[in-house]
Structures are given as structure tokens and as C-alpha cells.
């Protein structure tokens, strides 16, 4: 489906989302409270049919986090980038997308382990790479570890 048609459709589903086009993929930023319902709509609607989540990650811009989901459609072969901003650095929380795409399960565990972002309604949220008694979240920008890291 062409980018313009997709843009129109997305605007009709979520009028107050910020949309950036002209880059590599169409990027849609939504609010935390609309995320789950919008994602479900993107997957189930016949015109968009985004059924394949190929990458979910988080980025730490020094005062807020952004959770980024890259989704693809096997029927129409179009892609979309779904972003959500989390401003709370003490207790970051966001809805889990596991019931929509099962691929999100491992990705969200990784984000919880390395960034500390909690996902509500996740079936099994626990650390995946680091030991259970590891203190701190390594991929945050303010992570300091004089014991383990040799700086260069």
C-alpha cells in the first residue's frame, strides 16, 4: 500500500498521533494510554494487517525513554514504526504488547532487564540476561560501574 494511503488510514484511527513521513519508514508516535488499543487495531484491521513485529527496542534520551516497535505486514508488505514516549524515569511503565504479537515477549524481557522499563500484563516479566542480583540497568545513559567496566 502506498505511504499516502497508509498515512490517511493511520490518521483516521488515531487523530492526535504525531506522524512523520518522508524518512525510511512511516513513524507514528502515540500516547501511552492509546498504545495498546491502537496496536490491536493495526493488527486486526483488514486494510493494514500488521501481523509481524520484527523489532522492539528502547532508546534512552537523557530525560525520557522511547519504546520503538517496528512492524511489518505479510499481506501488503508495508512497514511502520510505532513510538511511545515515557517521561517518568523513576518508575517507567508501559502496556505490554504480548497478547497482540507473541514476539514481543522476549523483547520486552530484554528491555526490562537492560533499561528497567516495566511492562504491565506481561505473562512472565523477569530478567533474561543478567543475574537476578545485578544492581542497575546497564543500557541507561547514566549507568556507572567502576568495578566491571574498564573505560576507554
Amino acid at each position, binding site marked *: 500500500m502506498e505511504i499516502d494511503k497508509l498515512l490517511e488510514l493511520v490518521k483516521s484511527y488515531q487523530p492526535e498521533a504525531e506522524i512523520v513521513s518522508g524518512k525510511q519508514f512511516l513513524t507514528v508516535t502515540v500516547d501511552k494510554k492509546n498504545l495498546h488499543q491502537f496496536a490491536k487495531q493495526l493488527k486486526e484491521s483488514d486494510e493494514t494487517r500488521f501481523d509481524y513485529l*520484527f523489532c522492539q*527496542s528502547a532508546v534512552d534520551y537523557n530525560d525520557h525513554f522511547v519504546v520503538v516497535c517496528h512492524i511489518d505486514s*505479510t499481506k501488503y508488505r508495508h512497514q511502520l514504526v510505532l513510538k511511545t514516549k515515557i517521561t517518568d524515569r523513576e518508575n517507567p511503565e508501559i502496556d505490554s504488547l504480548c497478547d497482540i504479537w*507473541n*514476539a514481543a515477549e522476549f523483547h520486552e524481557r530484554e528491555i526490562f532487564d*537492560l533499561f528497567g522499563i516495566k511492562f504491565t500484563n506481561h505473562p512472565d516479566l523477569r530478567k*533474561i*540476561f543478567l543475574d537476578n542480583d545485578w544492581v542497575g540497568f546497564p543500557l541507561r545513559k547514566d549507568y556507572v560501574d567502576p568495578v566491571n567496566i574498564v573505560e576507554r
Partner: protein
Amino acid sequence: MNMEEANIQSLIEEQEFTINMGPQHPSTHGVLRLILKLQGEMVREVKPQLGYIHRGIEKMCEKMTYQQIIHLTDRLDYFSAHILNEAVCLNVERALEIEVPDRVKYVRTILDELNRLASHQLWWCAYGMDLGALTTFFYGLRDREKILDIFEETCGARLLFSFNVPGGLMYDIHPNFQKRIKEFIKYFRKKLPEYDALLTGNPIMQERTIGIGYISKEDAINYGLTGPPGRASGFSCDVRAHQPYSAYPFVKFNEALFTEGDTFHRYKVRIAEMWESMSIIEQLVDNIPEGDYSVKMKPVIKLPEGEYYQRVEAARGEFGVYIVSDGNKTPFRMKFRSPNFCNLAPLHILSIDQKIADLVAISGSLDFVIPDMDR
């Protein structure tokens, strides 16, 4: 029932017990720890534990320049080292809007396919060994050494090449490159039917793999199971066909797709891919265009601000590189979408109600490389 009969009855009833298939194990292909809940020999639950080779590569990348990151991506999935290097180079070239010469594209694709062949050969030899056929170990390694000779002559290394740089290749190809590849293809075309004769038609192998570990197409798409396991279930996920890069737009090849989705067809997809790789190399090796082997780049590479994503087809599935740049010479955030990490997710639904020996066959057919999972 009196006391004695009740005791005997409780002994006969199978209880569930939890067993550890620990990080050091001959069949887990690396440091993967599986916690199995067993009832007799039937597997009831599989919980993988990762992190035994987590080296923190994504955090390290935030302090390294783009040319240094290429050497780190080698060590992720070391069987597709060339393909992963290419992913980072393509991403940087896309961000800087550089068009590389055609010669570079052809050589990159030929080396990609050779790398895929070498990786599938090693998979075949290790898979046969898992199932108990030790002969396949020596056959596969014998043929793989011939490919590694070609790599050594051109790229200088056997396993971790770092031959791609942003802008092209590190040096020009060796004058013997085309001759050696043609000799190898002629040799291997005669040897690959031997592989079929040894393992594919073997009744023991067929008993152990047909009908075991079934996953449907919808589940494969939902879990993000790409690469040969996804294609065995009917999920057409080949990045070379849908989002072609390098010289793939210039070649014709068929995507190996089956619908049965069991272990035997995951095996057959890889054998079919080996045939396809040879045909792609034959289409390209005679027509390498003349030209430069690299575009002149500045010594310090700074990407413009923004986000860039590149998808390539590694030997095990779809590999993605996601760069968030803020204009400096090091990336702000670098994320690797690794195929093995996503292929591990459906392991528990593939192995419910199978025996432990089947679990070994299933995880061998999914073909894990653990450092890629843990990054």
C-alpha cells in the same frame, strides 16, 4: 487398597521433576541453559536461561566508531560474519546516501552466498552429530575447509573476516578468485547429492524428524520465526526476495518454501538453500564488472541525525541493524535484531509433549548460535 499396594501405585505413577540441561552440554551448541520439566521422558515445559555469553555489545557500540563496530558484529553470529558486516555497512551507506560501485555489490553478494553455504555445511555436520551420525561431522568439515581456503586467499581470515568497510571492500579481490570459485562449485555439485544419500533418505533420520516439532504459519508469523524454520512453515520471509539489497536485484532465485512445518522440512529447506546459493553464485561469478573496489570516504564517519534500519538475510534468519544517531562519530544507540533471539521464543510450543531426544533434534533444526542471542 492396602498400604503395600498404595506404595507400589505411587511408585508407578510418574511424577514431574525439573532437570537442568546446563550451560555446558554437548548438544546445546553453546552456552544455552534449558530448565526442563519432565514427566518420565515427556517434556512438559521448557524454560531457556540466557546470558552466559552476554558481553554487552550494544553498550560497547556507544563508545566506538562505525569502522570499529564492524569488527564487533563479526563476533555476533560468527557463521554469517560477512553478512552481518554488510548490514552495518549498508546502513551507514544508506545514511550518508552513498552509492557503491557495481563491482562491490557483486563481490559482496558472492561472498554472502559462499558464507551461507559454509554456514549450512556446518549446520549439517553438527545436526548429523546430534542425531548420532558422526560421519556427517567429517564430511561437512571437509567441504567447508575448501570454502575457507577461498576466503583466506581473498579476505585474509578463515572465520571472522571484516572485509566490508563502509564505502566498499577493504582490498580488491585476488586474481584467482573467480577460478577457485568455479572449481569449488563444480566439486560441490557432485558432493551435495552425497549428503542427501547419507542423511536425508536415511530411515532412522526420517523416523526421528518427520512429524516432530510442528509449528503453523500463523504461529511462526506471530512469534517472528524467520529464516529456514519460518520458510518450512510457509512464512515467506526472505529479505533477499522482498527487500533486495546489494546485487540481489540482478539475480533470479527461488525461495525455498514448504508448508509442513516440521523438523524434517526445516532440514529440507536448508538443503534447498544450498542448491539455490550455488545457482546464485554461478549467475554472478562470471560477470563481475570492472571498477573501483571502494568509494573514497573520510577517515571519520559521522552520520546525520536520525534513525536508520537495515534488514539482511543472515544464514539463520532476518538480521536487523537499528542506528539512532545524533550527529557524532559514535552512534547514540545501536540495536541488533538478532534472528536467533527471536527463533528461541517458540521453542516451548515446539517441544511440548515430545521426548527429550526429540528436543535435541528440534533445537538442532532451529540452528542456534548462542552469542547472537545474548549479544
